[in-house]
């Protein structure tokens, strides 16, 4: 879509875009280019510039068991937390959309968790899921040693997933509810007249009509699980125990800023960037399809 009526003096037009362009050049394109450069070079330990090493950084990263462990952990985290957050939100949104008495309350409250900072909710869950105080302690009293995120990698992963899903249920809920409400009431009523029940209507009308939203949220949730997990991991587990929750962004941070391995961190960043770009491209293909859908 283009404007028919525009302003003639285009030099002024460009001036309006200059602040944004300066910002994205300095803080987006330059660093992104720098990451590519660093990933292909190796910084000399005592200064003296970078030497060109080609793809060596990538080779050493990809042959490192720790890195593959981090990728596996990220994928497990992404799949489980996305699945949990989306299924719970879908059920809650579908039920809220039935508009029974009191549904306004859920519309208001279910969104709250999304407003909370990841580290703050991580702190809350660190207490709630602590093995010696809080609520899992009750379970531990019945079955001693059942739950200990400080020692057991699987427990630590579960805690991080619970905290993340809690936040993103609210987020997904907003989008699912908007999608359900966009379906014309007359469609649902016509189907009810024809004698289809609630389940049948959900399966044959509502669910197919919200598939675009499902794909959209799938991509957003996975992307967010790569980035928004940092605060949760840092507060709850610090990547441990034994690297069980050392997710990709956390590893980039600890390698780059604690291990001062800029080249390795840059190579990891590039791999993560490619992953996210691939996901975004998938998302755009579905957006194209959504246009056909209506």
């Amino acid at each position, binding site marked *: 879509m283009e404007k028919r009526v525009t302003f003639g003096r285009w030099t002024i037009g460009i001036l309006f875009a200059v602040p944004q362009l300066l910002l994205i050049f300095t803080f987006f*394109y330059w*660093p992104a280019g720098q990451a590519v450069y660093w990933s292909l070079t190796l910084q000399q330990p005592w200064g003296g510039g970078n030497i060109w090493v080609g793809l060596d950084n990538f080779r050493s990263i990809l042959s490192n068991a720790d890195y593959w462990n981090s990728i596996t952990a990220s994928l497990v985290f992404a799949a489980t937390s996305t699945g949990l957050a989306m299924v719970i939100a879908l059920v809650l949104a579908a039920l809220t959309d039935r508009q029974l008495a009191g549904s306004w309350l859920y519309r208001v409250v279910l969104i709250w968790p999304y407003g909370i900072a990841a580290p703050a909710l991580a702190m*809350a869950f660190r207490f709630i899921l602590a093995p010696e105080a809080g609520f899992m302690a009750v379970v531990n009293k019945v079955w001693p040693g059942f739950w200990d995120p400080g020692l057991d990698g699987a427990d630590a992963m579960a805690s991080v997933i619970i905290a993340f899903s809690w936040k993103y249920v609210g987020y997904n809920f907003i989008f699912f509810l908007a999608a359900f409400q966009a379906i014309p009431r007359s469609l649902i009523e016509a189907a009810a007249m024809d004698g289809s029940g609630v389940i049948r209507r959900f399966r044959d009308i509502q669910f197919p009509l919200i598939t675009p939203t499902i794909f959209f949220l799938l991509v957003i949730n996975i992307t967010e699980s790569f980035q928004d997990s940092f605060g949760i991991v840092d507060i709850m587990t610090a990547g441990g125990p034994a690297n069980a929750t050392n997710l990709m962004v956390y590893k980039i941070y600890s390698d780059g800023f604690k291990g001062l391995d800029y080249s390795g961190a840059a190579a990891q960043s590039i791999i993560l960037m490619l992953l996210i770009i691939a996901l975004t491209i998938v998302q755009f293909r579905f957006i194209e399809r959504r246009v056909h859908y209506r």
Partner: protein
Amino acid sequence: MVERTPILNFFTHLILFAGFIFCVAPFVIVAIAASHNLKDVNDVPMSLLPGSDFWVNIKTAWTTADLGPKLLNSFIMAFGVAAGKVIVSALTAFSIVYFRYPGRMLIFWLIFITLMLPLEVRIVPTYAVVANVLEPYQAILDLTGLSWLIEKVSGVQVQLSLGLLNSYSGLILPLVATATGTFLYRQFFLTVPDELTEAARMDGAGALRFFVDILLPLSRNNMAALGTIMFLWAWNQYLWPLLITTDQSHAMAVTELKQLIPNVGGAPEWHIAMAGTLIVMLPPLIVVVLMQRWFVRGLIATEK
């Protein structure tokens, strides 16, 4: 409701109520834990009746993590990011929509691509740029031979350097440098009728006049939505402030939370930790509750 389904309605209420509990319980538990004393908070199971030490704990958390100045820093940063986004995005969208100039589509795509890569992913090199924001320009001068030329002609060696670590601009600017708001405005500007522009031009209004007096007042809803979303987003930033504020005087409330994690081996002071968590959680929660309409609207509009 189209038909009578008493059993299903019962289960609907049941499941929704469970969801409600699931969402609210952590807030309630944090608030209750913040009101206990050291012994009660570590009781198994912890009593769900509020204790009497709420204000004492809030005060202790406040002073231990020095939350007063930290909250102020968080506010400054969140307002800065929200205001920056609202202004810069409006300017850019105006330029893209209301002008025809060569390279307009290139600019559009350059901005669009920034949506793909969040700050967390390119964190290491962005940190290096903020350590000296003029480094990109220095490098360009060096590469094009301009700095050599300047040195030959004037005898001045070009050394551009401006560090933004531990400064508000260093915190805020990189967070403003994405496209989120631009597309929100663009979609809206495209729906503004052309007749309005024609009328304004006929009355002799130039581009700037039209932008300030007509377009901006019309976009008030968009500004509120974008501002709310960006405020929350900035308030909740963690990794970025953690990296670039090595100096305590610029630390954020959210990053200070880490100070309150009970030490292994020491007394598990969960009541203080939870009081601090409550303080940090509260401002964004209040914004969500008060600005719910704008929040939901902004969320749906910025992502799609």
